């Protein structure tokens, strides 16, 4: 089992996300004494009766003033079983693009809903974005469950009211996630109270209708592929970042190709092809400052020495001969539009794929995905901020890409504003949402 889990949180405004994250940090004893003192002081200043754990994570002045999360905050905590890198993402619709950032590397996402509101529009939007990005595991934290049934006359009546609410929300969420392509094993619903800690670190006696693990127990034990990018299932993909040529007295003729292995593995003697040129050569050596490697795996930064002197520069991809992708200059891609101004057909943009940035022209807008009805709207006029759609793209220089569903690293790209330089879109090669049960009627 992996010792590191990358996760993200997502939810709507006021679902209590930052409080839940604060609770996770607090209950795993990841908060040190001076940080607790600072939070306690600030809570007293605000006239609060109990320490506001969300102050542990809402780091910006505007966030604390408004009591909302604006930008992704990265948090690091650990239990004896695992280390966690957590991206706490904002809930406000306006900041959905920040949620996309936080979730793009996540192996698991905790989606929050307020038990009194259930699955709402923003929950559906987030679930669609997470399906698009291919997040393998989901947890639905049904938060503020303790606030359900408060008017009931007895404890029994309150508990059964909470049970009914939890069952109904879970059922609705399951219908949604099944339509979006997750299986039942990939999804878990947990009733929690982030404020009081019910079912966060340990199982609560206040929720007799729930017999599953606490949130932390689940995070510690959920099986995840250490590399959920598909990187182990295909041959070598090595985007060249930089050519290392020391030209020093000690290394007068050294020429190495530096990069991080995006997929597959590599060993000396492997036959490789340089893309897009198609030139074939052989790996002579895998260099690192700590010595040569006999084999290198995805994620490792190395320097490749080749047997032949070939023309290779930044932006090229060195791939295994066996399954090298055909470089493409026109292709369909699914995009999540992150720009304030809408995307229209004919737009001229920059496209960054791996280590190559090239000019791109958007051909047609094929369809817009309606994440509320899980339906496709053909030939939309434009894609607005936070819209997901299928488009066709033409690029000036061919790229060596894989379908996103085959490999995240070689199947993803950015769309960049050539004038202002801002990142306008997250692109995924292929029709990534084609598996969604369109019109599933949820």
């Amino acid at each position, binding site marked *: 089992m992996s010792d590191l889990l990358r996760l993200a949180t997502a939810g709507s405004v006021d679902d209590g996300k930052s409080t839940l994250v604060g609770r996770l940090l607090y209950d795993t004893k990841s908060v040190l004494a001076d940080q607790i003192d600072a939070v306690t002081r600030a809570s007293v200043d605000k006239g609060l009766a109990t320490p506001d754990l969300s102050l542990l994570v809402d780091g910006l002045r505007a966030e604390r003033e408004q009591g909302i999360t604006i930008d992704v905050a990265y948090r690091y905590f650990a239990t004896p079983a695992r280390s966690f890198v957590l991206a706490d993402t904002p809930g406000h619709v306006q900041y959905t693009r920040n949620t996309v950032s936080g979730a793009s590397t996540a192996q698991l996402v905790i989606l929050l809903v307020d038990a009194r509101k259930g699955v709402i529009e923003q929950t559906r939007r987030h679930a669609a974005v997470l399906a698009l990005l291919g997040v393998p595991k989901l947890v639905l934290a049904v938060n503020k469950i303790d606030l359900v049934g408060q008017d009931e006359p007895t404890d029994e009546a309150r508990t059964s009211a909470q049970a009914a609410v939890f069952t109904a929300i879970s059922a609705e969420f399951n219908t949604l996630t099944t339509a979006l392509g997750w299986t039942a094993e990939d999804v878990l619903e947990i009733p929690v109270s982030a404020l009081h800690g019910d079912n966060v670190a340990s199982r609560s006696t206040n929720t007799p209708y729930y017999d599953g693990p606490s949130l932390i127990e689940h995070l510690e034990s959920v099986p995840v592929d250490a590399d959920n990018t598909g990187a182990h299932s295909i041959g070598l993909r090595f985007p060249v970042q930089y050519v290392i040529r020391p030209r020093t007295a000690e290394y007068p003729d050294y020429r190495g190709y*530096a990069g991080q292995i995006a997929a597959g593995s590599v060993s000396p003697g492997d036959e490789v092809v340089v893309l897009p040129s198609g030139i074939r050569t052989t790996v002579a050596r895998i260099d690192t400052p700590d010595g040569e490697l006999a084999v290198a795996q995805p994620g490792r930064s190395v320097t490749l020495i080749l047997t032949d002197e070939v023309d290779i520069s930044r932006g090229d991809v060195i791939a295994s001969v066996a399954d090298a992708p055909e470089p493409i200059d026109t292709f369909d891609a699914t995009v999540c539009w992150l720009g304030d101004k809408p995307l229209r057909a004919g737009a001229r943009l920059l496209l960054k794929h791996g280590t190559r940035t090239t000019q791109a022209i958007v051909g047609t807008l094929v369809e817009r995905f309606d994440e509320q009805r899980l339906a496709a709207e053909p030939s939309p006029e434009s894609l607005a901020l936070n819209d997901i759609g299928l488009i066709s793209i033409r690029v000036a220089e061919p790229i060596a890409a894989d379908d996103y569903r085959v490999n995240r690293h070689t199947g993803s790209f950015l769309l960049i504003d050539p004038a202002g330089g801002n990142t306008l879109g997250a692109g995924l090669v292929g029709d990534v949402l084609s598996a969604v049960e369109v019109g599933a009627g949820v």
Partner: protein
Amino acid sequence: MTGTISERSLGISEFDTLAALESESIHVFREVAGEFERPVILFSGGKDSTVLLHLALKAFWPAPLPFALLHVDTGHNLPEVLEFRDRIVEKYGLRLHVAKVEDYLADGRLTERPDGIRNPLQTVPLLDAITENRFDAVFGGGRRDEERSRAKERIFSLRNAFGQWDPKRQRPELWNLYNGRHAPGEHVRVFPLSNWTELDIWRYIAREDFDLASIYYTHERPVYQRDGMWMTPGVWGGPRDGEVLETRSVRYRTVGDGSSTGAILSDAGDNEAILAEVAASRLTERGATRGDDRVSEAAMEDRKREGYF
């Protein structure tokens, strides 16, 4: 992820969390080398910038480092730190730029603060050095686990022509694709250590076994207590009435302006001992020893908005 048998047989440690962090940081250095014209590494002589430099050297090995270093000098240094800085520069044949707060105080472009703390005064000399040298990418050793506003920082963080950080206008940062586009006059702050924790840093220093400035290791030093911190006398002043100078075994957890950075009592004399001490600590390194971060709820955010590291 675990390393393969054949990787281990060559004496290479398995691909664990530290190795993954190292590879991620090296990837960031190479992206910047590939896309920017004039990058520079901020180097304070502290442990984070020493780790940063170590990773940068590894990223381009066996070629020389393709970047210069920039030290923003508060003038409130412990001599051991400057000695360490110069030794490192000499050892690796590096180019060093120094921007001095004292030059600005001397000609009146800056004035000393009433509390005598000079960390906040580094911003203007830093921005001027960036402009004068036309640096377009500036590497910093900031980590997201250090402080709440740093936790919001991107790995590539765009600064406008005034050097300002606007947290509401940060670019989405997806997968491991970094967008370094910027207009002339703007620059990008780059944080290769973003995902490292303090413990990771110490584990890495112990594993790679390189030297830090000597103040990180236990030594005898005349110190006095102020606000719960152990301070060293220097050009910034010494004990006030009622504060007693005494010789204690101390070490520093961070390098900073001597007027506001304190030492801790410690007998930890090597990397392993420090690792054990840090793992058991119940105080963050900034909370324990950095007076400048205690000023207000948003002290770091305000300085970052102005263009601080």
